[in-house]
């Protein structure tokens, strides 16, 4: 009836879930993402890669993010749909040749007198 594991639970954890020293991956971390444009309050230094530690990647499968993945009980948020839309646009721009359609779209709204 406390927060930590009972002896029996600890044994189960040790046997079933704990990553072993013999494993190639001994620890897994979700790195704190650094946005240069956003001042991070705590200004944590970027985490250096360390042997045996796997840093979960939010970008490695970026190309896969151009469509919403199936959900279970929690639907995608608006922010997630925005993210998917942006990835779709990036993907579209990547495959374009010649004139950039996005630039053409935006140019129609450009009025030089607005540019101070």
């Amino acid at each position, binding site marked *: 009836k406390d*927060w930590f594991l009972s002896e029996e639970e600890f044994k189960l954890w040790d046997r079933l879930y704990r990553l072993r020293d013999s494993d190639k991956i001994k620890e897994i971390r979700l790195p704190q993402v650094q946005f240069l444009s956003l001042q991070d309050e705590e200004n944590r230094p970027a985490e250096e890669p360390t042997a045996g530690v796997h840093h*979960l990647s939010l970008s490695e499968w*970026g190309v896969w993010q151009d469509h919403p993945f*199936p959900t279970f009980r929690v639907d995608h948020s608006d922010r997630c749909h925005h993210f998917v839309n942006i990835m779709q646009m990036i993907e579209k721009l990547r495959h374009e040749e010649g004139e950039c359609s996005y630039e053409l779209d935006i140019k129609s709204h450009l009025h030089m007198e607005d540019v101070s």
Partner: protein
Amino acid sequence: TGFRKELVSKLLHLHFRDDKTRVGADALQLTAELLRIFVVEAAVRGARQAQAEDAAQVDMEQLEKVLPQLVC
């Protein structure tokens, strides 16, 4: 299966600036349920991706594919 209230309380207190901050029983229960839903959602999305790829098990690759949209 779920997160024990005592564990949730301990997790929350890690982030409180004032040690005297208290958490009500309802808030603890709600947070425990939120954590449970988050874990199950992550697990099911990963499992579905593994099924879509005819994988034998859910490996980190499948989880990393669903992770960006999950944390969004």
